[in-house]
């Protein structure tokens, strides 16, 4: 693995870490399987790209992308909470609707940003190579998000949100407005995904309607790999685990891309990635089992 490929994997891992954190919020904390992310990721990319080509400040454009993602999350939450549509179905409806919305937002299937200023532009040419600047900037943004979110989840509102996910009936009995927490949590989750979409578009030079495909799978894989390598009770650490899981997932893809050296073909990529992630998930379990047997033998 070359240095550029390694930093590239870390950079894309960091971008998708925001998706992983979003999925952690909806899937783990609120217990709400939310497929909206497959639509809110390209929505964020689309909104950001369209604003950038009209000359809006890149930071403002990224913020708008996050807000657009949050709005998409609110649609899903409304369908579920207000109209009692099953969460999975509600999120699928929003996701498929977003495909058309994204085409409308961009006016075409692909918007190029290769020649636009982005949040990264001011950091280029400061003596650090581009392929290192990008993960550094994205990493800084992810660090800020993790810190803010850890504080938020430890606040009274955040604790009530966690209670909503664990046991909604009990939370309601304690006077928690569970509906409000579902709205807020799903909006926050998709807001982070929208921001990830905006960063993806800016680091890779384009927004494309197809960028959303499989986002939920990548997010879930990152969350679960993270939980396996960093089994943590503390919430802040769990968030760090999402980031680690996302980067590890990308390293697995990178490894799979180099698998032609051992006789595999380009078309085997998804299979190899899946096997590597599965091995990552199985190994700790086997190790735990092994140590139990050793202890029993003594």
């Amino acid at each position, binding site marked *: 693995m070359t240095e550029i490929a390694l930093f*590239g994997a870390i950079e894309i891992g960091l971008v998708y870490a925001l998706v992983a954190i979003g999925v952690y919020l909806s899937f783990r904390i609120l217990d709400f399987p939310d497929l909206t992310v497959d639509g809110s990721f390209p929505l964020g990319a689309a909104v950001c790209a369209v604003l950038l080509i009209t000359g809006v400040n890149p930071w403002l454009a990224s913020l708008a992308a996050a807000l657009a993602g949050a709005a998409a999350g609110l649609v899903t939450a409304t369908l579920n909470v207000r109209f009692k549509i099953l969460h999975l179905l509600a999120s699928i409806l929003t996701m498929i609707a977003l495909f058309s919305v994204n085409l409308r937002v961009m006016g075409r299937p692909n918007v190029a940003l*290769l020649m636009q200023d982005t949040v990264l532009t001011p950091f280029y040419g400061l003596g650090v190579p581009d392929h290192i600047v990008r993960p550094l900037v994205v990493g800084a943004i992810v660090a800020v998000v993790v810190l803010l979110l850890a504080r938020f989840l430890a606040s009274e509102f955040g604790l009530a949100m966690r209670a909503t996910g664990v046991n909604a009936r009990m939370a309601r009995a304690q006077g928690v407005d569970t509906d409000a927490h579902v709205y807020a949590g799903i909006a926050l989750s998709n807001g982070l995904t929208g921001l990830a979409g905006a960063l993806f578009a800016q680091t*890779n*030079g384009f927004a494309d309607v197809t960028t959303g495909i499989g986002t939920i799978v990548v997010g879930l894989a990152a969350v679960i790999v993270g939980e396996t390598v960093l089994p943590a009770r503390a919430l802040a650490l769990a968030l760090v685990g999402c980031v680690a899981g996302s980067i590890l997932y990308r390293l697995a893809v990178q490894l799979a*891309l180099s698998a032609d050296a051992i006789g595999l073909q380009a*078309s085997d990529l998804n299979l190899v990635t899946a096997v590597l992630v599965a091995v990552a998930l199985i190994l700790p379990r086997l190790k735990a089992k092994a140590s139990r047997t*050793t202890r029993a033998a003594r």
Partner: protein
Amino acid sequence: MSFTRLLCAAVALAAFAAPIAAPVPALAQSKTVAITAIVQHPALDATRDGVVEALKEAGYVQGQTLKVEYQSAQGNPATAAQIARQFAGSRPDVIVPISTPSAQAVAAATRDIPVVFTAVTDPVSAQMVKSMDKPGANITGLSDMAPVAEHVALIREILPQAKRIGVLYNPGEPNSVVLVKALKDEAAKSGLGVVEASVPKSSDAQPAVRSLVGKADAVYIPLDNTVVSALESVIAVGQQAKLPVFSADTDSVARGAVASIGFDYFQVGKQTGAIVARVLKGEKPGDIPVTLAKGTDLFVNPKSAAAMGVTLPDAVVKRATKVVGQ
């Protein structure tokens, strides 16, 4: 326990096999070409094979003087971005991205490795190059923009007496706007006029084509999703009013258009490979103008042509790749 250890060893081996295997001692004159496509499908695969074939004709034989790396992103743009970084790191002599998203990811990943993109419809609006004539920097390539010039020539060959071409399109589709502008340029070169009729939604197609009756001698349909989805209603009017309908895509010929010229993607790949060979021989990509792919597949529909009052010249039918509707 031994199983666990075996598994650990296997993973470790997989992790290290790649970096060890990467710097294979190359032959003195050997070149590396890294090809990537967003997905694997027949047209894109044919493009890739065409590139390799053209390189072979130029004297670069795979396995001897040429090493070809190929990666497919399996439809996932994030993977496309990672492939782009991998290629930027392994520093091949030329990177050949197939399709717009792959090309953009590669362009974002490197500013110095030569890039020859292909199957990108509009490289200027995709911001791959500043202009078609002078791409500049490290990038050039091939656009698979519909061969409008060849379409106009075909219409003139089939209908020598035609004076005005009517065009149906949705002004809301950027691709169509580009194609209509190209049509006007090409038609003007041949002394033909162009009459536009706008089709904002599919249900507007029929009234739009009716409005062309008497004003145009032939109708041309660009690669416009709105019009193509309402193609049958256009064909029906064409047959009633004896107004021949031509299409930019070969698929529409089976649905009733008189004729069209489209791409054989193996040939598109060969045209791209010729550019790659020039770069391998030392030319700077930035100095090579972006090439427009040449269409090679000619589809004709004599039955529908007859219904529209047109007799196809023998020369056209004889060289057609495919004759449909019989």
